[in-house]
């Protein structure tokens, strides 16, 4: 097991290194990061030359990459092109809002999707299951940005004018706000994000549970004289949760990179919003840092998923 994890970690590091080169190169293709300085008539050619040297843009691309990646490995993500500060200090305050948003959405998903999926499978084709099928279809097909706008309009604008008090905020979040304030800001983007993942995971959980319900070992469990409840909750659920656990672990890697669309619609001060912002501003080092972090998270949580699988399924072992 340990040997497997070590081997996978080494392998992951190599993949990540490869990813870093690709990320660096592709982002550099987008053009000249100093465009906004060149367009500014008050920036003299000398200043431009000084900036070019400061950012190492005069060096060949491969040298720039090696400088960037070595700095990155020592924990320095480089300097921002658009703000006179380090990428570290730009990214750091964005981490918590993203973790908060994604964490709440994940929690909502787990708390709703798994029980609902299991229930739908147990009461297949019941009114509630059919309603679930329909709603999942709707939720799944709804574009996030549209859902976000509708939520802002209905729960933000209409509700506020109807109730006379502001219940939900439509954008942003203050880091110094109190708990209630944070919740008021968090609610709408978290709901917007959860709708799709609840739709997705409840379907997935339903399918997994249905699969298990028709299995021979459940018939064996019934034939032993087990009450229906333990047949479902002990014998079926344990098996039906295995694929979900894996998928959730992989999903975590994807989402902590930030939800670009949702964060942008709600101006949520997280990593996803920052990524879009940095791309608008040609702030390549910020974009590169965010992309590499996202890649690292995906690779890491894939490893976590594999290891987690060996804990939930005794048939899987990595010896």
């Amino acid at each position: 097991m340990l040997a497997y994890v070590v081997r996978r970690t080494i392998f992951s590091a190599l993949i990540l290194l490869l990813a870093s080169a690709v990320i660096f190169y592709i982002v550099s293709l987008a053009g000249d990061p100093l465009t906004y300085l060149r367009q500014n008539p008050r920036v003299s050619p000398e200043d431009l030359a000084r900036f070019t040297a400061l950012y190492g843009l005069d060096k060949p691309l491969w040298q720039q990459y090696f400088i960037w990646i070595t700095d990155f490995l020592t924990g320095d993500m480089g300097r921002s092109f658009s703000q006179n500060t380090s990428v570290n200090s730009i990214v750091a305050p964005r981490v918590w809002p993203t973790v908060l948003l994604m964490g709440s959405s994940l929690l909502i998903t787990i708390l709703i999707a798994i029980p609902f999926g299991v229930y739908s499978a147990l009461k297949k084709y019941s009114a509630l299951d059919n309603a679930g099928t329909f709603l999942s279809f709707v939720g799944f097909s709804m574009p996030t940005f549209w859902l976000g706008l509708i939520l802002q309009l209905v729960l933000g604008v209409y509700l506020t004018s109807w109730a006379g008090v502001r219940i939900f905020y439509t954008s942003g979040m203050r880091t110094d706000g109190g708990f209630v304030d944070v919740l008021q800001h968090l609610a709408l983007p978290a709901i917007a994000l959860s709708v799709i993942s609840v739709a997705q995971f409840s379907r997935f959980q339903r399918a997994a549970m249905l699969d298990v319900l028709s299995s021979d070992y459940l018939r064996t469990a019934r034939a032993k004289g087990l009450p229906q409840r333990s047949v479902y909750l002990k014998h079926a659920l344990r098996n039906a949760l295995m694929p979900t656990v894996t998928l959730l672990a992989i999903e975590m890697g994807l989402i902590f990179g930030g939800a670009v669309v949702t964060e942008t619609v709600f101006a949520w001060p997280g990593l996803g919003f920052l990524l879009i912002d940095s791309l608008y501003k040609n702030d390549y080092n910020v974009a590169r840092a965010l992309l590499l972090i996202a890649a690292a998270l995906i690779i890491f949580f894939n490893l976590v998923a594999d290891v987690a699988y060996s804990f939930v399924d005794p048939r899987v072992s990595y010896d």
Partner: protein
Amino acid sequence: MAMLEVNDLKTHFKTQDGTVKAVDGVSFSLEPGETLGIVGESGSGKSVTALSLMQLNPKPPVEYPEGEILFEGQDLLKASESRMQKIRGNDIAMIFQDPMTSLNPVFTVGDQITEAIRIHQQVSKGEAKKRAVQVLKDVGIANPERRVDEYPHQYSGGMRQRAMIAMGLSCNPKVLIADEPTTALDVTIQAQILELMVDLQEKYGTAIVMITHDLGVVAQLADKVMVMYAGRAVEQGPTDDVFYDPMMPYTWSLLRSIPRLDTAGEVRLLPIKGTPPSLIFLPEGCNFNPRCPFVKDECHRIDPALEGKKPGHAAACILSPEELENKKHRVDEELGVEG
């Protein structure tokens, strides 16, 4: 009164296309220590009969419009679910066809056996585990102390079926229903498993319902046989009588369709032509008439009921024993069967 008595059991599936009469009026009885073999092709209603005894058919779509299943005088068709839970595993246990998928992959074999014990008996975990080790030993698993803590995937196919049998026997049931227990196993293991079941039956006095499509298994184990076709019992009687003097052309055809070691190469096999009928659209008259080698005009009109042909031996066929004997004799001569 017999320990287990099934009278005119009907198990019907309500489907969109119509009612599937999976079991349509089956009767048999079983005494302690006795073995009944239920033989038939796939879809003849063997397994549904077995699951009916345990009340494990999914309801809906399954209905039991008629009949009774008397276990020690109590009608299981009328028993409550909680009463059935006390009977399942404890009084009537069942082992299934495919040992590879019939054990839960995420629990140890020991857990699954102790669970069965602890549902029905007030014993401590430690005591139940000791019993689990003992039954694993009884079914011939080497190193049961170590094996009890292993997962099903660490067992071979034959060992898993032994574990299934161990689980079935863990509460000393009065009736053990074995639904094709050896079908998924290779031949050498099959023989071991069958021998094991006979040994355990002698030791515990368990009555066995052996469901199979393997006539050899029945000949070896069963005291009496019930042959099923299209949801009905078409021949019933003591094993020797049924095998040496089959009274229903279907049984006879089954016996003529399998090779025998003593006459290999000398005797041609007689395949049963066609396929079993759809249980929704049964043929007019006798269900077997489209495939029967001895069919005559009346067979298309008359649906024969199971009737006694000899003491203790019943068959559903309108041919008289003499008529049947002549027809069998004629075909046998063509095939090269002696006597």
